[in-house]
């Protein structure tokens, strides 16, 4: 009797597990279908994108990619966008980590007040500031040619109130004993910061860089405002340009969209463990 009950229970839970798999698989396929369609349609000849006949051997082509690359000036645009996110991600990280370290570890007059002022800035959306920021950038010569435009795309976003706040929380949780050993060796503030504190908060640094890279790779409003020339366009602007300038070629637009997404997806493979790890760690506290 007992044994029958046990096997009955096991097969029921096995059935539930298979059911969960089946439902998950169907939902996942539907959820990702727009992106799958994007890739597949980017490989279709113009006339057959919205038509039928997808199952045959005809109508497939790589030509959209060559056209998109040429028409959207994607070589230049990808380079611009890459430089933009690397400068913001790398330079911003150092600047914000330094400030965060000072707020967490160094004693100075007015520390709490200044920090509270920084925290207030977190809520400010870039959209509110975009218009006056445009004039500030113009006054400082951060618009126009290639070097100026790259500076205009990056310098205003190096310092970020949220990143300072976020990194400060992590510096606070670094045990003081870790620093004491280095102090015995006569390390100054800079060496404590660089050799002890920074390595101790590596996962938080990775999180900040990932968020910055993702956010700025997709930047639209600000580049739209300050890049006036073709050669300073970012990837997203090139895509928007291809999308709105006649002749409208759906295949080219989709190929351009795929090429604008590919770098992020390759990067995603590397950083997804940080996302998964974040919520795994959250349970331990």
């Amino acid at each position, binding site marked *: 009797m007992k044994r029958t009950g046990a096997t009955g229970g096991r097969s029921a839970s096995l059935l539930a597990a298979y059911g969960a798999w089946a439902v998950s698989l169907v939902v996942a396929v539907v959820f990702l279908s727009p992106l799958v369609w994007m890739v597949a349609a980017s490989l279709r000849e113009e006339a057959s994108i*919205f038509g039928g006949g997808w199952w045959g051997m005809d109508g497939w082509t790589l030509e959209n990619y060559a056209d998109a690359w040429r028409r959207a000036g994607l070589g230049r645009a990808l380079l611009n966008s890459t430089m933009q996110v690397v400068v913001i991600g790398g330079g911003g990280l150092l600047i914000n980590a330094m400030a965060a370290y000072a707020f967490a570890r160094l004693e100075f007059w007015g520390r709490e007040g200044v920090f509270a002022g920084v925290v207030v800035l977190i809520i400010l959306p870039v959209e509110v500031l975009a218009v006056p920021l445009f004039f500030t950038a113009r006054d400082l010569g951060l618009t126009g040619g290639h070097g100026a435009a790259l500076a205009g795309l990056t310098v205003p976003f190096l310092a970020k109130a949220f990143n300072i706040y976020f990194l400060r929380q992590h510096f606070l949780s670094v045990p003081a004993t870790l620093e004491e050993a280095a102090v015995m060796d006569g390390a100054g503030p800079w060496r404590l910061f660089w050799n002890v504190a920074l390595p101790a908060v590596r996962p938080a640094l990775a999180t900040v860089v990932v968020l910055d890279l993702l956010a700025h790779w997709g930047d639209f409003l600000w580049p739209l405002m300050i890049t006036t020339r073709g050669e300073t366009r970012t990837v*997203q602007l090139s895509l928007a340009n291809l999308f709105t300038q006649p002749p409208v070629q759906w295949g080219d637009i989709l190929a351009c969209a795929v090429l604008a997404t590919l770098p992020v997806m390759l990067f995603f493979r590397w950083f997804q463990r940080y996302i*998964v790890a974040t919520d795994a760690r959250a349970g331990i506290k």
Partner: protein
Amino acid sequence: MTRWEQERGRSAGWFLTPALALLAVFVVWPLVRAGVWSFTNADLLSPERARGVGVENYTGLWEDGRFRRAFLNTWMFALLVVPAQTAGAFFLALWVNRPEREWQWLRVVFFVPVVVAMPVLAVLWTLLYQPAQGGEMGPVNAALGVFGVPPQAWLRDPALALPAIALMSVWQGVGLQMMVFLAGLQGVSKELLDAAKIDGAGAWQRVWHVVVPAMRNTIIFVVTVTTILAFRIFVQPYLMTRGGPGNSTLSLIQSVYETTFVSQDLGRACAAAMAFLVLVGGVAWVQRRVLKEERE
């Protein structure tokens, strides 16, 4: 404080100066300028020649039909997106909350649209929503056709355009809030859930009476963040519909942008930006109030 600590404190200036200087120049100063300009008749080409006009820009905002429409659209968009995205993310988090390794792929699936840039998705969904023309139709209409739904002109119908953009936005963002809920779920007491189960509570009852109260703060956080993100909508309608048809998807940000660069009325644009800031700040303030009650 030891002598050594005081010495260390003196180096704080070097650590702080780069970040604080940049924040002052590129955040605080533009904010102050926007605030000042919002009370003047500044125009795009020569803002330095502005004259004060009092609160005229602010009182004029509401009489401006385009701004009023943009304001209402932005609220409507938030009303469509926030409940759907919050509830969707919550149930997705419950569903993907499976610690086993072989289930990790599922949470990654829902996160994928979050990492794709919004302009890319806006362009993609414009094609997905293509109306039927001749023998051709977009995949959304084709898929609905299988279930007997007649093809719609999604982005060209004033009644459908905003909901269509909202649907696409929920699809894009739901994975992010799912991750936040997933982190919150790890803090729900397993003992409490087991106890409820032993007492004979069904799955729904456990969610409603145990999980939801335990995740109150996470839910408030997600609603706040989603609301603020929804208010900031710009890219989707700008690329998908240009704010049309008939201003039915015009966003607040687009109206600020056009007041600046098309009407060149900088004073009015800054007033609109300040109104937007009050809106966003108000949401954050409400969140703080609600969370404070929780602590007391």
